[in-house]
């Protein structure tokens, strides 16, 4: 039986969770913002040559919430990894980053969380360095769904780590 892993993407609305998935699954991007309500579920197979196997990533794209405690907990059942996404150009989406991550850790103790700053194409490297106090120390990766920068890397590294 093929290995499958459930990955849940969370974060505020408009941070680009759906765009990241679309970029990864279909390699497309649209400037039009379409609000996600509830959850959309996608699947993509990733091959991991180092381990000589394939893994099927089941991606749960949750609706954005400015307070993570409002997330429907049933969506989190059976999750293997979280990707917490924020928008580097919108402080409102990362101002409570630390407490949001604490909430997730409390709800799913042993589930790994990857913190991703999306829309890195909108800001400069200097900006990212200047804001290191706000989000820098907690961020694992800066990505851009628009340019595709580090999007494949994000999911394939995560898949590799989950095997």
């Amino acid at each position: 039986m093929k290995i499958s892993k459930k990955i849940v993407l969370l974060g505020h609305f408009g941070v680009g969770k759906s765009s990241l998935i679309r970029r990864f699954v279909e390699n497309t991007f649209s400037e039009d913002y379409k609000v996600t309500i509830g959850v959309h579920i996608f699947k993509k197979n990733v091959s991991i040559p180092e381990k000589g196997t394939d893994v099927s990533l089941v991606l749960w794209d949750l609706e954005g919430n400015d307070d993570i405690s409002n997330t429907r907990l049933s969506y989190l059942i059976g999750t293997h990894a979280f990707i917490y996404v924020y928008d580097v150009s919108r402080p409102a989406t990362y101002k409570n980053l630390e407490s949001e991550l604490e909430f997730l850790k409390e709800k799913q103790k042993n589930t790994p969380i990857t913190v991703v700053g999306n829309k890195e194409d909108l800001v400069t490297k200097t900006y990212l360095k200047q804001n290191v106090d706000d989000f820098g120390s907690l961020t694992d990766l800066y990505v851009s769904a628009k340019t595709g920068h580090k999007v494949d890397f994000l999911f394939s590294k995560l898949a590799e780590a989950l095997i």
Partner: protein
Amino acid sequence: MLENYQLPLKETTNQLLLISKDGIILDAKTNVFKNCIGKSIIDLHPFFYSLIDLLTLKENTFNFDCINLEIEGKNYTLDAILHTNIEKEHSIFVFQDLTKQYTLYQKMAQRKNVSEIKKQLLDYNNTILQEKETFKNTFIANFSHEIKMPISTINGFTRLLENTNLEQSQRYNLKVIKNTNDKLNTMISDIIDISKIETNRFSILPIRYNLIEELNTIATIYTAKSKEKGLELHYTLDPNCPKYVVGDKYRLVQILNNLVGNAIKFTQAGTVALKINCVSTNNNTAQIEFSIVDTGIGIEKNQIESIFNGFYQINNNLINNNGAGLGLSITKKLIHQLGGKIQVNSEIDKGSIFKVFLDFEISQNQKEDEGEEITKIVKTTSKNDFKILLAEPLPINQKKLLKIISQIKNCDIVIVDNGDKVIEELYKSNFSLVILNLKLPTMDGLDTARFIRHSDYKEISKTPIIILSEKPSKKEEAYCKERRVNSYIGKPFDKSEIIRKIKYILKKKQAK
């Protein structure tokens, strides 16, 4: 009978799947998942993948609201309920197709989120703009202070030179230097004032003063300036104006200097008038109208609003229109800070009328105050060991502090009432100590201390400083330490503490 009508509705919205504990679909009543009996639920949609483990759990119920599934190219939004282990270890999935309802909700959420994101971005951009503006204003203020230091040095030495034996041509050259330096000083002070107003660091310094005397002085100065240009200055003062008022004397003088100075500058022939009229009075306040009327070049009607913008220059080549163009901008801002208003009427080639309305607090004491005479008095006795410069704007406080400091023997005391005068005095002679009130007009205590410490002249930069603060705070004390102030004393002023600190500094000075 109703069931006949209800049944088609149920069929279209409710979907049922009976599932074995290993995920095989045993029975189905659904028009969403077609031909699914006998298949594994994992093959229906990735949604089911993570739920397969739940099927082995004991009897339980799980709710999954608003699940968006794409089945055979069609999008559905469903609410799902999973009842596990209900009968013979079988589970049931109940779906309700709420695609229409959720589509409406999605549209509402779209509008709400788009507007919220726009608001967040706008707020953030505003914050960044404000930070940039504050940075710019702070930079300008600091830079202007740096420029003000050499200007004050030139001013100090010019005054020293004035008191030496000079030939007529040398005296003329010195006058040119002094006038140019004064203009530069005014421009820099305007820039500092504007940056202070825009960064909310501007403060009003109310003192009791003789209004009539100040207005007469202004009139005397500008009568002379008008004559130099071949103009007449008509000065009228309403006798109902109160003599002693409480207010910011320096800002009133600055406003009138700007307006009367401009009137003379832009009038080539005719008259300039300064009319002061007491509009109304009650026990505590008097509203006074200051009219500055000229027969000058006038201003185009559509330009009247613009003259109060920063860096505005009246476009007329006949006029030697030098300056930063900040005079009227700062005047309007100052009037606003003082709670007053300004009106302008003007006609091209006929002249302009500027009217300023300001409220003044009438001093309860309308008698001459002896304390007032203290300013500028140098108490000298022969061959004293020490010379103290005291900078305090309020005559009553000058009097109190003089009484305290006079207890120290062998000491001359020079009293001034603003920061610029401190600098002037420091160039005139060496002082053993400078005592500065933090709230000084023209240049506040902190800036004056900064000037002293940054002076290129050791005699000035090494002068010990005591700062007196009426609203002491840790933050203020830290600023004073940064400026290497020797001592910081906060209100309520303790007489013995002041004497002890002065004595300590003078003793150290003497030991050197």
